[in-house]
């Protein structure tokens, strides 16, 4: 059984056919990297999985997207419930202009949790899981804006973890960070794999090779190749994949 499965998904922005007949399966507790040149549809595919594309006007979606074997585009699906289960981390660190504590607690509060002790416990646990606790435990009441970019991104990860999702979507989570912070995020992804199913969009080939179990190569809205990461990077089946990962275009 797959954790995430898309069957013949087509997505249109108005007249633009952005995703063409995409079928993909991801197992629980694996890391799947989505790679490909800009505009290839990888971020669009990522946002399909927590219905973030719904926020854009004129989007039309065909096909099925199953999470835990349930079609997330079926009638009667509650989007807030879905997004509780499918956390997201964005390209640029985007903590709220609130304290570090309130940033992490936000997801709990908007989902109706009011038990103070429970919130405190979740905040602590999430910051620990995001490998940020040691750096911020003495300044939880300070503004999140006082943190460095790398710390802010780990705070955003903690914020996503606080509502206990089972899937974590990451849209180029390290592209705005320096190499040291990037290494920390990658290490974190590796650790989080135990508990979460992770889908990561990245422009960085080495990163995809380092952190992921499976890699999907997108090109012009099509899924060109999907295989074990090792296979993709050592022995790609498709010439276009070969060209892309060796840097001949992209």
């Amino acid at each position, binding site marked *: 059984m797959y954790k995430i499965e898309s069957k013949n998904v087509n997505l249109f922005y108005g007249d633009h056919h952005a995703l063409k007949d995409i079928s993909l399966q991801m197992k629980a507790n694996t890391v799947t990297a989505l790679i490909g040149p800009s505009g290839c549809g990888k971020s669009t595919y990522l946002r399909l999985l927590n219905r973030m594309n719904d926020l854009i006007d004129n989007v039309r979606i065909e096909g099925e997207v199953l999470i835990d074997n349930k079609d997330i585009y079926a009638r009667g699906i509650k989007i807030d419930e879905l997004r509780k289960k499918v*956390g997201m981390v964005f390209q640029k660190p985007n903590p*709220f202009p609130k304290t570090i504590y309130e940033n992490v607690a*936000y997801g709990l509060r908007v989902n109706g949790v009011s038990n103070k002790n429970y919130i405190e416990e979740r905040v602590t646990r999430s910051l620990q899981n995001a490998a940020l606790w040691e750096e911020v435990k003495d300044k939880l009441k300070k503004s999140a804006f006082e943190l460095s970019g790398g710390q802010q991104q780990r705070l955003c990860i903690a914020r*996503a973890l606080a509502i206990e999702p089972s899937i974590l979507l990451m849209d180029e989570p390290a592209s705005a960070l320096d190499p040291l912070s990037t290494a920390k995020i990658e290490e974190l992804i590796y650790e989080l794999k135990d508990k979460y199913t992770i889908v990561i969009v990245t422009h960085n080939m080495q990163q995809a090779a380092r952190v992921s179990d499976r890699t999907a190569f997108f090109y012009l809205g099509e899924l060109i190749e999907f295989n074990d990461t090792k296979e993709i990077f050592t022995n790609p089946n498709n010439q276009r994949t070969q060209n892309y990962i060796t840097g001949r275009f992209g």
Partner: protein
Amino acid sequence: MNKRIKQQIAFWVLRIMSSLVVLFLVLILGFIITKGIGVISWKFLTTMPENGMTEGGIYPAIVGTFCLVGGSMLFAFPIGVMSGIFIHEYAPNGFFKRFVQLMTNNLAGVPSIVFGLFGMSLFVNKLHFGDSILAGSLTLGLLVLPVVIRVTEEALKSVSDSFRLASYGLGANKLQTIWRVVLPIATPNIITGLILSIGRVSGETAPILFTVAAYYLPKLPTSIYDQVMALPYHLYVLSTSGTDIKASRDMAYGTALVLVMIVLLANLLANALRKYLGKKVKMN
């Protein structure tokens, strides 16, 4: 001409132009202060006008202006802010939204005397509020409504979408996102707009002319159906149609000074509040 000289010339032209702006502002302020400071006293601020408005104070006009500012804000602020939120956050892009925005902009361009006439015919006559604080406040409120709406829209527009996305991504709905994330960030700018519109309201004469302003009424209002004196109208009366224009000339400058000070204070307060709230929002 080489490009360094060109740059020097452009720089000096810009510098002179901006200095001119400051110069005129300082001139006006200096003029009013030197002419008006002589009559300013505690008595001037806290007593009724006497002797055909050539002596005594302007207390009722100050109170009246505060009543009108408060009343109009009570009316314009909630409606304006909520409209702004609706237009920017809820209304789908399309004909209706563009229509509302067009209308708001047009409303902002309507001369204030027209608001005065409208207020008189609707609030004073049709709704039988009479010449009253209520009618005057509603008229002034209508006048600044487009300003408040625009300010709210601009404030919301300046809130980065990345905050909205982060909030939705955590399972928040639209109302929660607006209430807990967007509005706290936009509040400093909205407040600034509010206070700037206070400056506008306190200085307007035409809208209150037919709806509330009293020529001479040396007592304080007891209900919202009372007439009041107001600073801008009092200034107008003293300088054009008072009982003795020459004798009340100093009183007029004093009134002008008080009015300018109120507006100036409102603006300073707006700045201070924006800075304070801007800091505070990062801490919450």
